[in-house]
């Protein structure tokens, strides 16, 4: 199994490599665009995204409200801009945390005693063979919808996949010649894990994480659309789509404009993730969240 050496020194070269290819460049631009939209939301948004103005509800697009207003007179454009913040925060926090937990569990399974490994593999397999959405909905039923539940659900459903990946990588490394050599020279477990295993398993994990970000964005929007994700009035693309759906016949603008950032961000992150994988390691087996 090939491993990715992801030293920081290669990062600028990697970005240049991505930017040379039109698909990679498109992904890079879209992702950077949405990231800055999320970071600078308060400066970009023309209105307060939760300020209600019932007199101006269901406004079509106009110079004052470029994307119109919703059923409570809130400015749709401002809600979309702040929605980027919601979507990206949830996506980055949950995949980041899931990556850390997956890394830990995977290394424990890979390095731990045989019995523990077998048990963990069974649990990982059980979770991975669940239809993810079913499990997510069950958890939401118990905990009640909300941002924290959403992050928790994403953690639960994605950790097993990452842990499996890390375990497989760890096992193949454990039996590789250079680790054997280190061990015969009397290197400690900790040294082997920190110096040799960790740097080699982080690369593939980063690729898988980046490929899962669009899936999480989709899931957040989908669950929020079903009123099972982010609670109103917090702006989320899914909430806006739901509000638009209920008024589809007389105010179609909301659905049209709220779908665009969702489509563009998932496409952007997918393009970037694909090209990142191709650039770093074309052979790695990706078993994504779906």
């Amino acid at each position, binding site marked *: 199994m090939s491993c990715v050496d992801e030293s920081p020194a290669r990062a600028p070269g990697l970005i240049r490599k991505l930017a040379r290819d039109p698909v990679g460049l498109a992904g890079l631009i879209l992702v950077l665009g949405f990231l800055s939209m999320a970071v600078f939301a308060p400066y970009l948004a023309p209105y307060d995204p939760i300020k209600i103005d019932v007199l101006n509800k269901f406004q079509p697009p106009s110079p004052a409200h470029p994307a119109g207003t919703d059923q409570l007179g809130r400015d749709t454009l401002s809600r979309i801009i702040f929605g980027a913040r919601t979507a990206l925060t949830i996506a980055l926090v949950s995949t980041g945390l899931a990556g850390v937990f997956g890394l830990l569990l995977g290394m424990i399974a890979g390095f731990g005693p045989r019995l523990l490994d077998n048990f963990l593999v069974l649990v990982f397999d059980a979770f991975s063979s*669940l239809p*993810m959405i079913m499990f997510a909905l069950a958890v939401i039923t118990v905990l009640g919808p909300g941002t924290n539940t959403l992050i928790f659900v994403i953690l639960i459903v994605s950790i097993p996949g990452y842990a499996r990946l890390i375990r497989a990588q760890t096992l193949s490394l454990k039996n590789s010649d250079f680790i054997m050599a280190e061990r015969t020279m009397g290197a400690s477990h900790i040294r082997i894990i920190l110096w040799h295993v960790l740097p080699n398993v982080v690369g593939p994990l980063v690729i898988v994480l980046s490929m899962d970000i669009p899936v999480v964005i989709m899931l957040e929007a989908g669950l929020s*659309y*079903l009123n099972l994700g982010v609670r109103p009035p917090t702006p989320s693309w899914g909430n806006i789509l739901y509000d638009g759906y209920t008024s589809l016949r007389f105010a179609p603008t909301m659905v049209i404009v709220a779908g665009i950032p969702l489509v563009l961000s998932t496409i952007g992150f997918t393009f970037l993730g694909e090209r990142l994988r191709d650039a770093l390691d074309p052979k790695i087996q990706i078993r994504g969240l779906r």
Partner: protein
Amino acid sequence: MLNYTIKRIALAFLILIVVMLGMFGMVFLVPGDPASVALGPRASPELKALLIERMGLDQPLLTQIIKFFRNAATGDLGIDVWSKRPVLDVIMEVFPNTLLLGLVSIGWALIAGIGLGCVAVVYRGTYLDRVLGVLSVSMIAVPSFVIALYSLLIFSVWLGWLPAIGSGEAGDFWSQLRAIILPAFAIGITWVGYLSRLVRASMLELIDAEHIRTARAYGLPERVVVLRYALRVAIIPTIAIIAVGLGGILSSAIFVESVFSRPGIGTLMTSAVQKRNYPVVMGTVLFMTAFYLLVVTLADILIARLDPRVRDVLRG
């Protein structure tokens, strides 16, 4: 082969048991009494009492677990606390709708995906191939419920060609067909992307494969080379991805069914979660997990029949 089949089925059962334990334990892991957790804080005392009695929550934990497993084994998934009907009946009422939707979706996706994949292979390396590649990735990336909303807006609201809600009149084939077009389109489009990429990749691999060259070098006619030597190898990853894809189709169906208010597992589940109808949620999750495991296990066994290399490793 038989050995593999038994091992694979045993693994499926083991996973199902772990899942059931997980589902059962979830209610107890949360602070507060299980009945309130399951029904939500606004449930009336009578409803709570009913649930406690139905689920045997007043009995010792071990008794409950044994009872839960025994009931599940006999197909008793509990009683819907709202409609007072057996959960299995409620599920079976809508399951065929979702199954049909899934099959139609994957069906058209197979035809379109294999077609596009073949076009990409024929024109490999050209501009068209690259455009198709980007198109496939985009189809994979776009959330199906956004496609559902957009197509609902265009074809139902603006053009009025197809119905916006429901699954058609019972017994009226044309009405049902018209109702399934948009949902199946929205769900299938992701799989068109997946399949076209898969078909392209596996066909390219086969074109260069040494064993295909051997078959030709020993004078086998093209018909035998393609049908017996190439197809057998090419079909294996397709079966695998369709089986795994079923899980993906289920999750798309949850959202897409809601967009089109189409009766099915998705709408059943969504409304049960919103109403915190825990027996229905739990029953549906178990049912769908069992169904999913069944399909994946069958596919794995089929793959092992076709590909002897898989048999030697249980988790290939």
